[in-house]
């Protein structure tokens, strides 16, 4: 197993990180010491992708230098060591979200996790997986429910599932402020609903959705639930059993891990009854030219040579986060989020999407600058070394609903300092003057 470095010695407390700790944490992230346009990088785009600490990079390098081999396939020593490292990482990441090891399936990213479930459902509809898989089948007269604030990743796979199977895609609308209209839910989620898919935390609004309420509604009509936890797992403590969802997806690159890896959690009972999605080597027991028998979860869903070194690195990332303390990271980022919104709201001509200052939000804020296009805002900030994200943030329907096409988003992580937030706010206040907006 790769040696996971303890990031920094933190005071064991439930309060947020301290300024001093954050500064020590930053030393673990080489890229945070680089310059952009001759200015120190201020990275406020962790909502898109996070940076990697040294321990994560080292775990991967150590793997390639000492135990690289195909897993679950070889009997030689290297293969055994590679398999151990790979499966230990699975256990670490499963534990990180309160799941059992066999309930965690590696995917390329959250997007693939959602597609996996959507395709398994249409495979079930086509009769694959037999009687046991009937509960996953959807068809005409049945529906899938999402929300109007979803990331495209949690929308288009369901549109395609509906188109393939003849099922209907419905959605829970949001109000003018972007909040879910829960009062409409009873009319949308009906006994014909087979699955309700929604995001835990919105990557645009920064809101945390009422999981309990939506799970309760879905359960009451016998529908499955899938939670898009891309913006929650990296930033707040998440326990799949407490959330009581059926499926949950997230991406490694947003939680200090490498690109190219993500995970799908599914209740064991469901994963073992679900037809496979990708097929090929390492997920079978017996294969003839005519047919194949499949292994149980998680191998059933992991066809071909897997993202081995990426899994090992993601295990190291989960350990880094655990050792720092997810509760303390959450507290730190909540404070940063509040500072962001208060600061932005105080700037003339800036409209923040989602909850007003004082209302709960995670450590990000998307906003519109009156009279200045988001790409010009981003360019202005980039010139000062500030990296933010601009555009529709893969949520075109939500932007359209709020009367916008593009916004600017600043998002934080455990390594973001209050000074960085302040420097960003300072720059944001100068955008409209620079472009002569009035």
């Amino acid at each position, binding site marked *: 197993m790769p040696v996971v470095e303890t990031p920094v010695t933190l005071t064991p407390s439930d309060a947020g990180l301290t300024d001093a700790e954050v500064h020590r944490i930053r030393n673990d992230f080489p890229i945070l010491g680089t310059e952009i*346009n001759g200015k120190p990088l201020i990275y406020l785009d962790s909502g898109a992708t996070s940076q990697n600490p040294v321990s994560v990079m080292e775990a991967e390098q150590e793997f390639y230098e000492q135990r690289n081999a195909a897993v679950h396939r070889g009997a030689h020593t290297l293969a055994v060591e590679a398999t151990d490292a790979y499966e230990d990482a699975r256990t670490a990441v499963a534990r990180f979200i309160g799941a059992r090891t066999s309930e965690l399936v590696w995917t390329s990213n959250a997007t693939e996790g959602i597609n996996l479930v959507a395709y398994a459902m249409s495979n079930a509809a086509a009769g694959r997986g037999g009687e046991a898989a009937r509960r996953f089948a959807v068809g005409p007269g049945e529906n899938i429910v999402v929300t109007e604030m979803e990331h495209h990743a949690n929308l288009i796979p369901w549109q395609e599932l509906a188109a393939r199977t003849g099922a209907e895609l419905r959605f829970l609308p949001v109000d003018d402020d972007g909040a879910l209209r829960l009062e409409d839910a009873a009319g949308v989620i009906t006994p014909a609903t087979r699955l309700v898919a929604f995001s835990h935390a919105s990557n645009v609004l920064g809101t945390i959705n009422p999981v309990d309420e939506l799970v309760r509604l879905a359960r009451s009509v016998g529908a499955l639930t899938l939670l898009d936890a891309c913006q929650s797992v990296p930033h707040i403590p998440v326990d799949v059993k407490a959330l009581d969802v059926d499926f949950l997806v997230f991406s490694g690159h947003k939680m200090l891990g490498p690109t190219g890896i993500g995970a799908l959690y599914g209740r064991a009972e469901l994963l073992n009854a679900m037809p496979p999605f990708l097929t090929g080597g390492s997920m079978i027991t017996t294969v003839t030219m005519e047919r194949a028998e499949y292994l149980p979860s998680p191998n059933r869903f992991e066809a071909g040579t897997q993202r081995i070194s990426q899994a090992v690195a993601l295990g190291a990332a989960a350990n880094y986060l655990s050792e720092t303390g997810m509760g303390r990271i959450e507290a730190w980022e909540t404070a940063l989020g509040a500072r962001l919104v208060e600061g932005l709201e105080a700037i003339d001509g800036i409209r923040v999407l989602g909850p007003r200052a004082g209302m709960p939000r995670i450590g990000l804020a998307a906003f519109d600058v009156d009279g200045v*296009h988001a790409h010009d805002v981003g360019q202005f900030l980039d010139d000062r070394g500030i990296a933010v994200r601009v*555009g529709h943030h893969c949520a075109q329907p939500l932007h359209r609903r709020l009367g916008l096409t593009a916004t600017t988003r600043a998002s934080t992580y455990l390594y973001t300092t209050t000074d960085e937030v302040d420097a960003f706010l300072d720059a944001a206040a100068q955008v409209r003057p620079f472009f002569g907006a009035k």
Partner: protein
Amino acid sequence: MSTGLEQLYQQIILDHAKARHGSPLQEYLGAGRAGESHQLNPVCGDEITLRAGVAEGNVTSVTWDGAGCAISMASASVLTDLVQGLPRDEVLSLIDAFREVLRSRGRIEADEEVLGDAAAFSGVSRFPARVKCAMLAWVALEESLLAANA
């Protein structure tokens, strides 16, 4: 302010982004034929619809509707001023010349004699993510001119 940003957003660009010469889009009622093109920048979702009239081998009119960043809007505006009345073939060469500068990653300086105010967009070539912004109207004009000839 660094030179990078001021090279990108020259005053003439900021001004044209507001002035938007040639906008809104208009019916072409002149002689000859008109061609139209709609262009979408997939990176940001911004769009432009442009109509060009051509009579006796000359570009007689350019009008457009669009939503986009300062660079894209200014580029459409400058383009409109630049090409009105020029021979169609000359305009197609201008578009090629502009494209060459923009794709050069700062290696080719625009010739102000040829490109006029559009030379102000030279700086964009150092910002690969913004090249499409500056090109949007030019591609739309190119397509419109081809359509007018079809």
